[in-house]
């Protein structure tokens, strides 16, 4: 057969980073879905707000600022090892990937632990009224994400230690970091809504 009748793709690499990879698109799809859930939950919060004269209703105090603010700082700080892990993945640097993923996990334990205190200091129970319900659900939705993100990262980290390690695992490290970014950055508006909205509006 003549050369012009074939397109030979045999020399193409067996993977790619960033938005060239299929996993990136899968991760973006998940981000769009979860982002929509967060956005709608926040919208529901404000919907309840418009129905009430006083907010929080029923003389309830707003959630204590201390633990929520601490955790926001911890979460934002975790972006540093996260970014370093991501870059290590892109450079296919196994040693640094292992190092920074372990540091990420340490942060993960920290912010999951502080989250327990956040729940304890919301100053309202989920079954008190609609305000209590939406605040617990907002915090609960995000907590589901920090727990699952921690577990994802832990499994991947274990894999990077025990193997089998192939090059495409480093793409997974990069995508896992992207998802970690989403989970942390999505917290910022939620923090604003849970902790500051009842004080400002």
């Amino acid at each position, binding site marked *: 057969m003549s050369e012009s009748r074939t397109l030979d793709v045999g020399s193409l690499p067996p993977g790619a980073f960033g938005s060239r990879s299929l996993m990136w698109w*899968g991760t973006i799809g998940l981000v769009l879905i979860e982002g929509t859930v967060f956005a709608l939950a926040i919208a529901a919060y404000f919907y309840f707000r418009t129905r009430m004269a006083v907010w929080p209703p029923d003389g309830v105090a707003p959630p204590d600022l201390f633990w929520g603010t601490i955790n926001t700082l911890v979460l934002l700080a975790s972006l540093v090892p996260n970014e370093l892990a991501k870059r290590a993945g892109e450079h296919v640097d196994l040693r640094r990937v292992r190092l920074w993923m372990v540091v990420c996990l340490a942060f993960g334990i920290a912010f999951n632990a502080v989250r327990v205190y956040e729940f304890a200091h919301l100053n309202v129970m989920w079954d008190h009224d609609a305000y209590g319900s939406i605040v617990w659900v907002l915090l609960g939705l995000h907590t589901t994400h920090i727990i699952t993100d921690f577990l994802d990262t832990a499994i991947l980290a274990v894999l990077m230690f025990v193997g089998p390690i192939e090059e*495409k695992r480093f793409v997974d490290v990069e995508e896992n970091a992207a998802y970690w970014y989403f989970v942390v950055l999505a917290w910022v508006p939620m923090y604003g809504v849970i902790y500051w909205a009842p004080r400002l509006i």
Partner: protein
Amino acid sequence: MKRPLELPHAAEDVAMLEATWAEPSGFIGWLSHVDHKSIGRRYLVTAFVYFLIGGALAALMRLQLSRPDSGLIGPDLYNQIFTTHGTTMMFLFAVPVMQALGIYFVPLMVGARSIAFPRLIAFSYWMFLFGGIFLYVSFLLNAGPDVGWFAYPPLSETLYAPSRRADVWAQLITFTEVASLATAVSLITTVFKMRTPGMTLNRIPLFVWAEVVTSFMVLFAMPAVMLASTALILDRLVNTHFFDVEHAGDALLWQHLFWFFGHPEVYIIFIPGSGLVSMIITTFSRRRMFGYLAVVLSLVSTAFMGFGLWVHHMFATGLPQLGESFFTAASIMIAIPTGIQIFCWIATMWSGRIEVKTPMLWVLGFFAIFVCGGLTGVMLAAVPLNTQLHDTFFVVAHLHYVLLGGAIFPLFGAYYYWFPKITGRMLSERLGRWVFGCFFAGFNLTFFPMHVLGLHGMPRRIYTYSGTMGWGTLNMTASLGALLMGCGVILFIVDALMALRAGDLATDNPWGAGTLEWATSCPPPNSNFIRPPTVAGRDPLWDNPPDQPVIVGLRADVRDVLVTHVLDAEPDHRVEFPEPSIWPFLTGLATTAMFIWSIFTPWGVVYGALPVFVAMVGWFWPSRPDEGGTQPWPIRHRTLPRPNEAPAPGGAI
């Protein structure tokens, strides 16, 4: 007409290729399938079974309503029947069947060997199957949901719905939404990243565009109903107060969340239908679609506008008039992009060389029925009319005209069109005409009288009505029409079964169509294309020059798949796709257990999550590197380009 692409191939390569892409046999093997064609077939069959169940429930409703004051079915059973009918058709049939067609055909139509994330697609199927089984087992145990397919609180709250029925409904939502969302992510990735070289954005088949647009709508709409149903489960299970008026909750919040999903939902059903119409008209008019760009933009703008209409389901609640006017305007204006599609279709037919085979017959039926439904929709968009017609049989007529007209008629057309590709056999043209005739006549006999019944004041969701209302004759007519429709469906099943046993064998391209799924055998080989084609036009089998290149160089010993750039489909890299795996099935089982358990206790989420976690670890944990030929560690020769290295020709993505 151009000859289909043919090349000599080395026989051993082909045998290895086919063996690599073959799916395992045996029962455990069947549970491990990840091939999109296998999953697509299952999805289509299961969705059709659900359609039959939903239709049987409708038949029971028509039986009960055929006469006034009928004592056949009491209110409790009737409420379960109409709720399960609506829930089945909307969640377990209409959306999944369109996604199933996408699962089977989108990879073929874009020239790929697989769908993106095949194990995710397999998981999606298991959630779909288990969700349906869960619903119908509940129904048989007298725990079928009975609060309407839309489950408005407070009726669906514990105080007024104390049994588990409403929990079954809410959890079914979770099953089906997980299945649909997974499929949507996969389809988007497939269409953007796995198109064969040459298939630039403006050469993507219209049905594929429809599936992509629909998938985006799924991503943004389904979270709304998931959030709402989760809030309902929480209200019922752990005493939150989202919709509970006594504790600052709000019954209308449910309606906003539900219809923010519910209106896009109907476009999620209709847009793939319109993609099927575009496809069938193109093939049977023997010319490229007129106004391709206009049709694509219409699909996209319909999707966007579809998110701005939801309040038209709430005109009777007494919202401020200015707000209502906005939604009236949007509801009327969305007819414009739909109209553009219709006129482009007519123009294509007008200038084509038409052969009226059975698929085309169904498209003609679509025109009549969908346009009628669209016009009653415009009527309903007007608030003063709406407050009279809302919640009457006029709306029942409208919704069936648009949904069956806009989606199911094209779907049956697609069944006739694509049956040869999936099975290798032709359905019967003669029987096909009878099926169409029965269904079309039966449909109009059933649903047209309902417009009149609504205008005469008959409300929806009533298990009986008094003889003094004068509604008896039209109801009896509708019931007889339903019988005729049922005959059409039975005839279709007969046609399909007969064809499977002894139908005419199909050639590769029995309709002389132009898209890539017809560039391979009927049914396709395991690898979809022995030599994947590239394209030089929008209808490749009509447009490609005889020497259009085919792809070589993909490995035959692993499931090697080509990934291309988003905009221009230039080749970028290859990926080794996964072998068959039991883990999607096991994850589906574990997730099902968690979902069902959590209806009974909130700890079900916690304890149920553990097996899910284990299954997912099993899913993602890679097999040993010496199976499948990937590079062992330590890596001696880097093959992946670093992020700052020059990207492959064609750009960064």
